[in-house]
């Protein structure tokens, strides 16, 4: 009898534990790879922010699809520019903890952005017009700024007023001081020392306090307005659960997002082929992709433009590269197709020009007639030789080119070590230029040193991003980068000087400023783009050699189905925040569990 009782108890216990464990089975999930800070604090302003959960937890006013030029409303239902104000009608929604989302949250958020990140000071004031209408009073209604305010994930929901409100008064004080200093700078006025000191003291004390703040520690959760809320974060896994208060919650059919830590590309390769994650965008060599397709036929690849180009940039402080003939010879001596094969085999066709317009956008922005007037730098070593010879360069018996004053043409190609595709490209470029007769060596820039070395001008030539249309996908963004932004900071190209063109002597710096003002008027913009393309191609501040693509690998049919077809324009949402694409597909219910 005792034995029978024991068996009975054991059976009941077994049934209970099985029932409980089956009750614990979570709903359908999708898995990705990313990185995040650990311990996880849930504070966008803290160290490492919230890692790859950013676009899942926060919402911008809208998404922008570069391929169609369409804005998809997210947190904003509509918006308009009135005078110097951007008026935004907000969606009636709630934070994941049930607190209503209102215009006051935007006011709080902007104060925190000003105080913590000294940006965007162009927002002079936030007018709360009603619970769901907010007016951003702007110092400029430049199209770049409007686009950025509408699409940047930081503008609206990093600092919920009911979580960060206790710091708001202090944030506003720091923000106001910071903006006053910024305004004085814009007006070209001197900033009083006492104002500067007061700001620095208050800002550093405020930032230290906010950096340490952890919503997770204080409230046990991180209220979000986005589609998913981080609920369990360990060193190796970050689990997000569907925000039941999100306006798309009823359509969203995937209840959990699980992130594995992106420790290395090889880990992600193995996870993809084993079906451990559903999508990722690592750089994978061609043969490895072929092998993966054999092992896992569900693995699909969609390559989308990263809206950027890799380029060989020159340091114009070095006398050697002030010579346009040498730069042109280098352009002709480079076999760009070979560089593409080695460094980024999925990359689009390489352009024969170096005009600063992305190859994939060339037809949209540059007429065939204009392209005919531009020098075509198709691989042609003979042409490169003749340019050098005409310019007085000579080739010695050792096979090395010498400048007109007899010095060997020797230089280094620097490249940032952690960017493996750049390293491959730099290696190929170095070998090609060596074979042509220049004395070239490759120099690796160690991790963390890129900015110091490039901005400090401690290089001769370097592999870098050339034109890049991130943020606002328009040639103006690319030329701003080339002539007013990072590239000119690196190269010291004389962008403010006048260059001879068929339209007279023109300065690329001024042309860029004019282009920025007409970005919403395509006909006028095309005129400036043509002039800038001419200067860029003929005076070569850099030699672009391939348009970078973002290879998105996804598993169709393992855990989820419903990936868009390859022609879908929404894939173009991926550059600059691939998670936005995933969020869009999840929130409208397209990505759904495999039945």
């Amino acid at each position, binding site marked *: 009898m005792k034995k029978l009782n024991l068996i009975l108890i054991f059976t009941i216990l077994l049934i209970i534990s099985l029932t409980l464990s089956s009750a614990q089975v979570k709903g359908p999930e999708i898995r990705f790879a990313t990185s995040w800070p650990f311990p996880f604090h849930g504070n966008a302003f803290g160290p490492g922010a919230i890692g790859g959960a950013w676009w899942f937890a926060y919402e911008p006013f809208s998404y922008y699809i570069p391929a169609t030029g369409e804005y998809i409303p997210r947190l904003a239902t509509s918006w308009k520019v009135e005078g110097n104000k951007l008026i935004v009608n907000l969606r009636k929604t709630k934070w994941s903890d049930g607190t209503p989302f209102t215009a006051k949250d935007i006011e709080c958020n902007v104060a925190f952005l000003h105080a913590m990140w000294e940006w965007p000071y162009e927002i002079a004031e936030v007018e709360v017009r009603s619970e769901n209408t907010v007016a951003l009073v702007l110092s400029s209604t430049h199209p770049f700024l409007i686009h950025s305010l509408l699409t940047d994930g930081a503008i609206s929901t990093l600092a919920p007023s009911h979580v960060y409100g206790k710091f708001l008064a202090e944030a506003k004080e720091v923000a106001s001081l910071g903006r006053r200093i910024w305004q004085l700078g814009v007006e070209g006025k001197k900033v009083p020392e006492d104002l500067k000191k007061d700001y620095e003291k208050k800002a550093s004390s405020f930032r230290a306090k906010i950096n340490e703040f952890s919503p997770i520690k204080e409230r046990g959760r991180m209220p979000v307005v986005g589609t998913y809320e981080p609920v369990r974060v360990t060193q190796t896994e970050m689990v997000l659960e569907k925000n039941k208060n999100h306006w798309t919650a009823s359509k969203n059919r995937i209840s959990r997002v699980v992130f594995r830590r992106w420790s290395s*590309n*090889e880990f992600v*390769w193995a996870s993809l082929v084993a079906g451990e994650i559903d999508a990722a965008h690592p750089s*994978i*060599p061609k*043969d*490895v992709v*072929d*092998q*993966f397709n054999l092992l896992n036929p569900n693995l699909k690849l969609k390559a989308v433009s990263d809206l950027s180009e890799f380029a060989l940039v020159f340091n114009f402080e070095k006398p050697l590269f002030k010579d346009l003939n040498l730069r042109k010879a280098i352009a002709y001596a480079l076999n760009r197709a*070979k560089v593409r*094969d*080695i460094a980024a*085999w999925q990359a689009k066709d390489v352009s024969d020009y170096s005009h600063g317009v992305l190859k994939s956008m060339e037809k949209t922005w540059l007429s065939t007639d204009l392209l005919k007037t531009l020098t075509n730098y198709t691989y042609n070593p003979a042409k490169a030789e003749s340019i050098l010879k005409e310019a007085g360069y000579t080739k010695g018996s050792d096979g090395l080119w010498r400048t007109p004053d007899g010095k060997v043409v020797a230089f*280094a190609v620097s490249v940032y*070590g952690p960017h*493996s595709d750049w*390293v*491959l490209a730099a*290696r*190929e470029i170095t*070998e*090609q230029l*060596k*074979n042509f007769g220049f004395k070239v*060596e*490759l*120099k*690796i*820039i*160690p991790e*963390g*040193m890129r900015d*110091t*070395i490039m901005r*400090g001008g*401690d290089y001769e030539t370097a592999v870098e991003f050339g034109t890049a249309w991130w943020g606002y996908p328009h040639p103006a963004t690319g030329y701003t980068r080339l002539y007013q932004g990072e590239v000119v900071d690196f190269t010291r190209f004389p962008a403010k000087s006048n260059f001879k063109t068929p339209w007279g002597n023109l300065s690329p710096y001024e042309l860029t400023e004019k282009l920025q003002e007409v970005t919403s008027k395509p006909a006028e913009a095309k005129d400036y783009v043509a002039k800038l393309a001419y200067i860029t191609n003929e005076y070569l501040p850099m030699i672009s050699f391939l348009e970078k693509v973002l290879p998105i690998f996804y598993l169709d049919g393992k855990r989820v189905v419903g990936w868009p077809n390859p022609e879908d324009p929404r894939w173009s949402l991926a550059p600059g925040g691939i998670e936005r694409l995933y969020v869009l597909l999840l929130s409208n219910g397209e990505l759904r569990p495999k039945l």
Partner: protein
Amino acid sequence: MKEFIRPILMNRKAFIGFILLSIFILMATIGPMIVPLNLSSNFAERYKPPSFQHPYGTDYFGIDIFQQMVHGARSVVGLSVLASFFAVIIGAIIGIARGYIGGFVSKFLDTIITIFLVIPSFPALLIMAAIFADRSLNMITVALIIAMWLWAPLAKQISAQVFSIKSREFIETSKMLNLGTFYILFKDIMPLLLPYIFINFITQLKGAMEFSVGLMFLGLAKFDPTHWGVMLNYALYQAGALYTPRGFHYPIIIMIHIVLLIYGGILFAQGIEEIFNPKLRRYE
């Protein structure tokens, strides 16, 4: 010469090690004169298996692996020998000074040795990579940087030996004869330490080689695409050769060469130690 060669031929470990090292030294010295190097890529020819035309096959760039191994041997072997040499010189000088001089100087040197023994080398190399990032370092400078992290254990061991030697009678005799510190150090003490220093020189080769590979990865040493460490990095991390059967030969050939070079050095060092130290000779 005969006196040097004969014991090596008699000792199996020393002999095999000597042969292996000789092959690599010949590879590094004469090899580049015989085998031409063509680093032009040919993507269509990538991952060709070993054949008569390409004895080791081709890599991800479609470049002959054998040619690269031969030309890379120069920087791998050269850098390792130089670094090991510097480590032994620094270690021996500081070790002897610490052991012989005594007093405050000895304590000061002991502190320095201890500091270098406890500093973790990899983070220190990362910092050095940042410091020297914008400078062109030649092979000697890089070898000195490597040697900085290898000399301390040797210095500690040598100082201990000098401590014991300096109290022996013949040293006391030299002192009484007023033969001077220089004479005592270099005529009396140094000859007794030479075998030990030589063995250390050989064993340090392994450490130096590992360091040089690390420095290439960090971008501190001059980038040489044929350096075996760089080749291995390309094979494993850029080309993902272990993920495709077509490319297996690419990293494996490089690994075999690195293993054989280090193994040759270890065998030779063990053999030499056995020759100098009769207690270790099992066959006698």
